[in-house]
């Protein structure tokens, strides 16, 4: 079956611009996660949705970052006033439920470059 998909695969933007990154989880998965992976590092947690609500947004670095999941399926990560330090690969993952034992399945990521 189809896995997690993310669009765009690459995004180049200028400092100060607004960007949206989209994630389409595996069908039927209620939990959705966003991570950020910088070069040479493991993924770092940003935010977790259970259904439509953000159950944990403790990883968002500041108020320029926010994410939505209005219908409990597709999610959009939004970054305002982008900075060069936001350049990274943004990964989305989904799991069947939100249990700590559930396996998270990752999408291919969106590589964001802020010039």
């Amino acid at each position: 079956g189809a896995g997690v998909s993310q669009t765009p695969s690459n995004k180049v933007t200028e400092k100060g611009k607004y960007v949206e990154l989209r994630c389409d989880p595996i069908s039927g998965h209620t939990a959705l996660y966003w991570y950020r992976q910088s070069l040479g590092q493991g993924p770092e947690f940003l935010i977790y949705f259970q259904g439509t609500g953000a159950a944990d947004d403790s990883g968002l670095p500041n108020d320029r970052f926010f994410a939505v999941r209005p219908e409990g399926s597709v999610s959009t990560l939004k970054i305002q006033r982008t900075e060069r330090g936001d350049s990274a690969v943004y990964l989305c993952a989904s799991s069947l439920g939100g249990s700590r034992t559930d396996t998270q399945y990752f999408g291919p990521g969106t590589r964001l470059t802020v010039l």
Partner: protein
Amino acid sequence: AQSVAQPEDQVNVAEGNPLTVKCTYSVSGNPYLFWYVQYPNRSLQFLLKYITGDNLVKGSYGFEAEFNKSQTSFHLKKPSALVSDSALYFCAVRSGGNTPLVFGKGTRLSVIA
């Protein structure tokens, strides 16, 4: 706070030899441990996980990992390495409540023919 350490940035092994990729963790409460692999230009793929029960966990592509509570380790192993196993390997841990999945920095495995 929970954390994961992968002490080796790079592991080199000859094809056909056994391989080990090390992982140690620190959590309060019971750990739930995961291994993922990232091939070049691909996303993270799930390999295996430890939840409870048997300390030896078997996963995809012939990989296994052993949970050692006293040493707080969850090393990834394979009896006979293949060149196609060359990739970046990540260990991750999750603990109680709604704590997020925390990843190590990754270990690059290079299997030489």
